């Protein structure tokens, strides 16, 4: 820590990955995250790392599978349509219990969609980034500094739980510049990856990285074992910020860049005498269910704000479980909600009898 740099989110995330021991990056150009690849291509050759521009998103994620199988910290990044292409590989990585980090700088969809910021891939990230029963650790930073801080968390948690971690950002975070401090560069933790395919050196039985189990009961058991690990993740790794929630009657819930807009609206509401607060999930999987459930006990109502037609709102409703009303406000397709719009929604709730 120490020196502050003014940096784009995309460049900061690349530097943060390198400082957390990621020496192998496999990418493919797509707006609005291409600066990640550009930065990696500039730095990696100078430090003996790998930057490889793959022939496709599909190839890139499979290169990550190959590298991560060999025990190194490996990463790929993309934006929404490219992440869809990676989903096959992500499922294999999860099914093979291999750690890695993936970055999604979300843009509007579906299809080719647009190139402006969006949060419409929440369901994909938290429910089904590929076929089969599996989860990713999903981290949702709200500032460029938090992108940097969560990068180390992502690699550490991925290694600890042997599962892929996804940084769920959006075009606004990727493109904006903010002051940022970096941690000291550290090597990836050595050893401990006794599953890695680094060659037997004639000293042990072959390691096999595999997701195929043709005996149904055996496959079921591997999945149950993996889900037991997911339970630990849920117990230990929930991260959430509560802002002005102590006496709040109207609780807003938002993540990522949207949470910044909502925080502004909460401040405006407070200035007008409305007791508003914000719960900002930092991990969207595992989801801060307990925090939200507890807040719902005393809140008059909740307002979920997303850059989508309403995806996280379903998790909020499950957490609230009827304890209070949950309403939703969203802009989508690349349109960013304004603080004034959100304030109007807060006022609607505050004025109502609920």
């Amino acid at each position, binding site marked *: 820590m120490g020196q502050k740099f003014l940096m784009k989110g995309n460049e900061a995330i690349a530097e943060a990955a390198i400082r957390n021991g990621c020496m192998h990056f496999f990418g493919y150009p797509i707006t609005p995250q291409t600066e990640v690849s550009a930065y990696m291509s500039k730095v990696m050759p100078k430090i003996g790392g790998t930057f490889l521009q793959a022939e496709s998103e599909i*190839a890139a994620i499979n290169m990550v599978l190959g590298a991560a199988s060999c025990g190194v910290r490996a990463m790929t990044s993309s934006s929404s349509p490219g992440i869809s292409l990676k989903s096959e590989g992500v499922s294999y990585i999860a099914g093979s219990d291999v750690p890695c980090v993936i970055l999604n700088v979300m843009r509007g969809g579906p299809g080719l969609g647009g190139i402006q910021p969006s949060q419409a891939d929440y369901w994909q990230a938290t429910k089904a980034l590929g076929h089969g029963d599996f989860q990713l650790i999903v981290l949702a930073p709200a500032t460029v500094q938090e992108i940097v801080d969560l990068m180390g968390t992502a690699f550490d948690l991925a290694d600890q739980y042997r599962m892929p971690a996804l940084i769920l950002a959006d075009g606004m975070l990727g493109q904006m510049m903010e002051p940022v401090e970096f941690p000291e560069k550290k090597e990836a933790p050595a050893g401990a990856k006794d599953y890695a395919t*680094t*060659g037997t050196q004639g000293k042990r039985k*072959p390691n096999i990285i*595999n997701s195929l189990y043709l005996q149904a009961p055996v496959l079921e058991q591997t999945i149950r074992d993996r889900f037991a690990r997911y339970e630990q993740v849920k117990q230990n790794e929930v991260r959430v910020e509560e802002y002005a929630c102590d006496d709040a009657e109207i609780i807003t819930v938002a993540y990522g860049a949207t949470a910044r807009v909502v925080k502004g609206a909460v401040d405006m509401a407070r200035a007008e005498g409305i007791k508003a607060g914000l719960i900002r999930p930092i991990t969207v999987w595992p989801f801060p269910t307990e925090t939200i459930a507890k807040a719902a006990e005393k809140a008059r109502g909740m307002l979920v704000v997303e850059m989508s037609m309403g995806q996280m709102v379903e998790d909020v409703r499950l957490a609230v479980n009827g304890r209070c009303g949950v309403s939703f406000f969203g802009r989508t397709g690349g349109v960013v909600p304004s603080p004034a719009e959100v304030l109007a929604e807060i006022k609607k709730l505050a004025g109502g009898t609920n």
Partner: protein
Amino acid sequence: MAEFKKTSGLTDAVFHYCPGCTHGIVHRLVGEVMEELGILGKAVGVAPVGCAVMAYDYFNCDMIQAPHGRAPAVATGAKRANPANIVFTYQGDGDLAAIGTAETVHAATRGENITVIFINNAIYGMTGGQMAPTTLAGQVTQTTPYGRDVTRAGFPIRMSEMLATLDGVAYAERVTVVDVPNVRKAKAAIKKAFQAQLEGKGFSIVEVLSTCPTNWGLAPVEAVKWLKENMIPHYPLGCYQDRTEKGVF
């Protein structure tokens, strides 16, 4: 006289391959070559999706099982992570020449220092005998019940010839294992391919024309005859590229 015994390049697992299938021979050759080159301890194999999907149980070295067609990308990641490892893929024709064509072509053109063992048996074996990219014109399969009509289903693809045009390819040779002299030639080619990787020469591929008696609907001996009479004329044996002296870069 040397004793005939199982190579240490293979595990004790029993092959699941059908009677008369030549996968077993090719496995053995790869295992023998790795043993003879003394590279089993640093070998990392990549298994495909297809009949050889369980190759990870058979080769006596570290193995990664790849998504369908992605073996060259997985192998690229493995080799870049640890260049001291000897990385090879073992892929069938659907895996390598249909769904994974892009991965194959680009690993080759990057001159990725890996070795690819390519089993061409002109059919999809594991899923029960559908048309492969290498299925011959007129050949009957489950999805070309009237024979492959090239006006609708296109032409069978010659991968060795195609890959030989790429600057990153150090070595590309097509062999077969249908008789003893050819088995010996195939082994020499596989050895040369691994040797090229050991010396950092670039991408190496050995295409092995193989039989699939089960899905061809032939007895093993007839299958060998069919391969010789039908496949070799379309897929001539021989070396299509050899830059193993100087390397590709």
